[in-house]
């Protein structure tokens, strides 16, 4: 029995040992997956390799050291890498996060590794430790695959996307004037937006966005050339690039084949009139998601406002040559800041927010047109009126006169189209309007507690009259002589 136990034990240990050795050998033989990493120097750029260690990007060290013309010793047996630079001697050891510089030492964010016979270091090895001895300062945005010498100007790039009536709009903003060229390859469903400048410094590498037209949006400069790669769906038939703000901003519209319902189909271009200065209108259906708003005969306000917003989008699209963007095209919750941001980011010329009113008094039937406010009395100043940057909650102030003009046009148009209804112009600190950088009005319809309002909201012809009156007001406002 003892002998058999011993044999069994030894056999088990041998099997475990064999498994461990096999695992170690197979792991050692696995090729390390590398991806490009770009280091931008003053005169040129270096494209080297990087690997991921515990989710962090590591840079191939030797290529960088050679490019900087620093003498080094790669002591394989001792598993150390020594750089003898004018500023001191730097020694890094394999699997050690501490590097020594002359008599001092620096602790890095990760350990130095050696894979496939090559040294890979975390980015702070270059930005902190190598800077001490080499003298070249770099800046690195965490998670990116590029490092930029501190002397080089690299304009920031910001990306955003929104679904419009018949297309998806990608908004690209640059910190300086740049040129963009669109390269479309319909066979591969890929659109490349190539910049004429490198390096650029994208705030995010990949845009977290996807819809019927766009699958992914990624910034890429793996070959040293700055570009945004957009993977599209087969529905996209054309791409339209509109530069703005002296080439500091770009709208890229991905236009798809129309498969939506008839009411969303725009009229032929020749039947649509110009809305003058109103090129982009943002329509904001009130409430959404968990915030249902008030209740109107079993329907929540959020549903009514979404229906009206979709109808207004269709009506504006039929009659005016404008781009219409909804802050939400589904049942989702948005706060006021998000709603204003959609209007601001799309450089909207007008924002209209739609709500249904409520009063505890069932005899009250008046509607309201709200402006952000209250406006400060004339002459009142906090001494910051000449400041270049204004606080977010005062963004509406420069546009207050034009917002009032929109409200007055809406008041006239709506009162004429809907007999018996009154629309009072009021001011309130409306969260969706207060940080908008364009004329903005909130329309609050009737009183959900009033029989006349309830009947109107369920009347088949009411929405059409209402929406056409709003379109009339927008058209007149757009062709008025005011400047934005």
């Amino acid at each position: 029995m003892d002998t058999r136990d011993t044999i069994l034990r030894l056999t088990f240990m041998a099997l475990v040992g064999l498994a461990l050795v096999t695992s170690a050998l197979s792991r050692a033989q696995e090729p390390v997956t590398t991806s490009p990493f770009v280091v931008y120097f003053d005169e040129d750029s270096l494209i080297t390799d990087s690997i991921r260690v515990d989710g962090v990007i590591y840079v191939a060290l030797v290529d960088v050291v050679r490019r900087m013309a620093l003498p080094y010793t790669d002591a394989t047996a001792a598993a150390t890498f020594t750089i003898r630079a004018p500023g001191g001697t730097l020694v890094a050891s394999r699997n050690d996060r501490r590097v020594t510089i002359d008599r001092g030492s620096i602790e890095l964010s990760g350990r130095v590794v050696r894979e496939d016979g090559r040294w890979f270091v975390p980015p702070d090895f270059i930005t902190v430790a190598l800077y001490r001895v080499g003298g070249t300062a770099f800046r690195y945005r965490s998670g990116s695959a590029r490092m930029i010498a501190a002397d080089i100007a690299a304009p920031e790039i910001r990306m955003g996307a929104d679904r419009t009536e018949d297309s998806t709009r990608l908004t690209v903003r640059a910190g300086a004037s740049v040129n963009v060229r669109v390269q479309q390859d319909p066979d591969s469903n890929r659109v490349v937006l190539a910049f004429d400048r490198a390096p650029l410094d994208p705030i995010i590498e990949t845009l977290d966005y996807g819809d019927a037209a766009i699958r992914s949006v990624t910034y890429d400069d793996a070959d040293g050339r700055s570009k945004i790669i957009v993977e599209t769906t087969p529905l996209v038939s054309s791409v339209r690039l509109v530069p703005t703000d002296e080439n500091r901003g770009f709208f890229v519209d991905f236009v798809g084949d129309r498969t939506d319902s008839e009411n969303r189909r725009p009229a032929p271009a020749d039947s649509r009139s110009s809305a003058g200065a109103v090129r982009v209108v943002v329509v904001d259906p009130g409430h959404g998601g968990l915030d249902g708003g008030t209740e109107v005969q079993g329907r929540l306000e959020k549903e009514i406002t979404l229906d009206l917003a979709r109808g207004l989008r269709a009506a504006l699209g039929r009659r005016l040559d404008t781009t219409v963007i909804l802050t939400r095209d589904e049942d989702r919750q948005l706060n006021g800041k998000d709603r204003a941001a959609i209007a601001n980011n799309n450089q909207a010329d007008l924002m209209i927010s739609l709500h249904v009113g409520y009063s505890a008094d069932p005899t009250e039937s008046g509607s309201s047109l709200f402006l952000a406010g209250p406006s400060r009395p004339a002459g009142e100043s906090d001494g910051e009126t000449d400041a270049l940057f204004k606080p977010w909650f005062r963004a509406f102030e420069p546009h207050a006169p034009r917002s009032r003009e929109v409200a007055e046009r809406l008041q006239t148009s709506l009162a004429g189209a809907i007999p018996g209804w009154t629309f009072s112009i009021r001011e309130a600190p409306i969260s969706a309007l207060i940080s908008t950088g364009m004329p903005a009005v909130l329309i609050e319809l009737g009183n959900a507690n009033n029989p006349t309002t309830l009947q109107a909201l369920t009347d088949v012809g009411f929405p059409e009259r209402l929406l056409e009156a709003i379109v009339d007001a927008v058209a007149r406002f757009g062709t008025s002589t005011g400047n934005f």
Partner: protein
Amino acid sequence: MPRNVQIALFVMSLALAGSLYYFFNVTRTIRSSTVPEAEPSFSEADLPLYEPNDPSIDVKLFLPATSNDVLLRTRDVTIFATTRVEDRARQLVEHLIAGIGEEGLYGRLPEGTRLNQVFVSEDGTAYLDFNSALSDNHPGGVLPEQASIYSIVNSLSYNISEIERVKILIGGVEKETLAGHCLLLLPLPADLSITDIAETVDRG
């Protein structure tokens, strides 16, 4: 069954039983060590809002009106001029919560509203922390929401000279709006343009 297998099974059974005993014992220990949240022995709301010898003063309460023409109508009420400004503020809010049964006025905050805490900073900002009923039970609509907010803001900043503006908190934290419309993220100064009194009236 071989003897060694029997012994192994016996040892494993013992280990399993021991593990189970340990697991349940630990669970029970954790449960018994969880102290239930004790009710506070008193809250600020239970403290007396005034002393018997405090003088009384007349103040204007701003109450939501039924007509949308004027959003807030004023009514005179009497409070005690306490030394603590927070106590004067609390008395005013208690009046707004109770309301005034008068035709033409919906003079009360939403059902179940309770004022948890009041704090007035040296710069004249009053921080009022309400329970969630003020938001949850609000009927909606911009005008009722504006009326609820400014009935509080105006009543406090008009009648209490130490208060310049009011910041409303819900459940101890900031809330963007009360019912999806009016911004609460900023301390609000009084807005008399939506009331039935002229802006030039001297503050009490």
